[in-house]
């Protein structure tokens, strides 16, 4: 295990946090993470936060009402993170309803903006979650409405997110690996 | 239940055996050469199943 952790740290140190020239939004902890498409991206995001000691709650089915209640608590979340890319295990009846998911997330983003929260749209599971139409729907619902786009290098193999950031003016935070997300976020939080 | 399932399984071997019996009879009786060949080919799965080979 030590070997693995060592190499992971090594990769982390060598990784380059790529940030676009655009002005970064204010990112504050605690964070709350949810997913459009019920893929484990939100879980991974929480795990990397835990490793970097950033307060983060994972709520895969978070609703606008829940968010409002949580945000009004004293230690309520200040940043909403939405991971994109859908889970396809068990199509049909065992799968997810992408239209309901889109509706939930649209309401959620609207609520977050009303609450003055920063919204991070993230794609952190690589090209494997950029294959089909539901993946695309998940991305196009979240990313254009985000204050910050967070991706790992393998999610942006074709430069899709870089180009989108350039044309839309939404800042992009691009890291090499998912394990690099924590340190990169810490840097942003500390910059405030 | 296990015994019942075994009995049911045996019934299926008996049904297959009966099919083989009828096919064999048909081969003997038929006057059509093409039918005779087809019936022979049709015997294959039923025979191997009855012999519990496949």
């Amino acid at each position, binding site marked *: *295990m030590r070997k*693995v952790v060592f*190499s*992971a740290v090594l*990769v982390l140190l060598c990784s380059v946090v790529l940030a676009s020239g655009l002005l970064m939004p204010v990112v504050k902890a605690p964070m709350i993470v949810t997913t459009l498409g*019920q*893929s*484990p991206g939100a*879980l*991974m995001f929480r*795990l*990397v936060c835990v490793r970097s000691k950033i307060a983060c709650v994972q709520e895969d089915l978070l609703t606008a009402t829940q968010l409002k209640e949580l945000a009004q608590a004293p230690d309520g979340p200040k940043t909403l993170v939405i991971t994109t890319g859908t*889970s*396809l*295990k*068990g*199509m049909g*009846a*065992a*799968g997810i309803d992408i239209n309901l998911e889109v509706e939930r997330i649209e309401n959620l983003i609207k609520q977050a903006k009303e609450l003055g929260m920063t919204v991070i749209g993230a794609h952190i*599971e*690589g090209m*494997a*979650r950029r*294959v*089909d139409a539901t993946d695309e729907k998940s991305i196009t619902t979240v990313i254009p409405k985000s204050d910050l786009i967070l991706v790992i290098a*393998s999610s942006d193999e074709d430069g899709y997110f870089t180009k989108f950031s350039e044309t839309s003016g939404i800042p992009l935070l691009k890291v090499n*690996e*998912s*394990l690099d997300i924590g340190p990169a976020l810490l840097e942003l939080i500390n910059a405030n | *239940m*296990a015994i019942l*399932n075994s009995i*049911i*399984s045996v019934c*299926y071997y008996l049904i297959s055996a009966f099919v083989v019996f009828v096919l064999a009879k048909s*081969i*003997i009786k038929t*006057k059509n*050469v093409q039918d*005779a*060949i087809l019936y*022979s*080919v049709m*015997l*294959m799965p039923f*025979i*191997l*199943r009855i*012999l*519990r*080979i*496949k």
Partner: protein
Amino acid sequence: MTDRNLLIVKLVSLALVAVALVIAGIQFHDHRNYQEEVVKGPGVTQVKKLSDYFEPLKGSINDCNIYIIDSGVPGGTAFLIGSSHPEEPAGNLTAQLFVENAKLAKGRLIVAIRANQSASRVSRPGDAYPLYYTIETPWGEKKFRMGDRWSSPLDSWPDPEVYVNYPSGQLLAYMDVRNFNRTWPGRANGMITEQTNYAFMNVIKEEGVDIFIDLHEAELEYPVISTIVAHQKGADIAGMASMLLTSTEFRIGMEYSPKSLHGLSHREVGDHSDAVSILLEAPEPFLDRVRGITDEKLLLTGQDEFVVMAGKYGLLYEKIDEKGWPIDVRVGRHCSTVLMIFELWGDFNPGKEVVIQQVPRYDEVVQNGTGYYFRDPSKAKTEDIYYE
């Protein structure tokens, strides 16, 4: 045609069919009865039978070996099974590699190499699978049975007109009553595949298994590929394993086990026991419907022009090029993923560690080949040889 000529045709066609039946019959018979040799590794402390956990399986075709590798040092108990689907060879090869090599420093590891023996002793009509495949080893070739996804009808006949999974009541296609990864958690008075699952659940409960891993492979057209599928109890471990492996060895994803898809190990083992259940998928182009020539070469190299073409049309969920997905890569992925999951299990559950040694990781398997890790039965003591 005269009666005489007709009689001749009849006799000739019957004779030809008889010859075909004898030739094919011998091959089917040999395949069903072929015994794979397993040399007990240095870590194996006990070899039990599945029927020790469920008496009715005694003497049946599905009474497989249960290898126990005990460190003697208190810790957790892990359970690894291969050949849930014997048409996915990286599963049983990896399991056997663990049995022949693993030594434990802490905790216990239980392994079943051929979880569904019946399915490993039949080939699928209409799909033209090879009957065997051979793995090169430093001491010669080692031959394995290529099996099917479903148990043999010789052991489970007939199928119901629709299969109702126990106890969920979910409807599945009729032949799935013979699909070992649709019949979990099993049924004591069900058909043989359901009984086998029931026996495995008994192993899990009686041995106090903490973490259970089921080894699989999948076609590239299928969305759940190169991934770790985890019951919610194991989601954190699987998510972390996915990230660590992706950053250090190879890309592997993670999926949650859907709560409404029943009969699969990653759902039912977790729901019906205290164990965390995880299923691993490696890419196997041999299983793709668009595959070209179906033979042992495709099975072992994973190289196929048609599958590559499907990839160019964006129809696949995993990358493929002319190098294909060789068996060593697939076995190596399973080895590293299993080791990583066990390591993380220990990190997340102090005092319940399962510390495994002498099992190669991905790079080593790819470099040396899977066969490098199999022991030579001709040099082993008779009492150390077991048969699958």
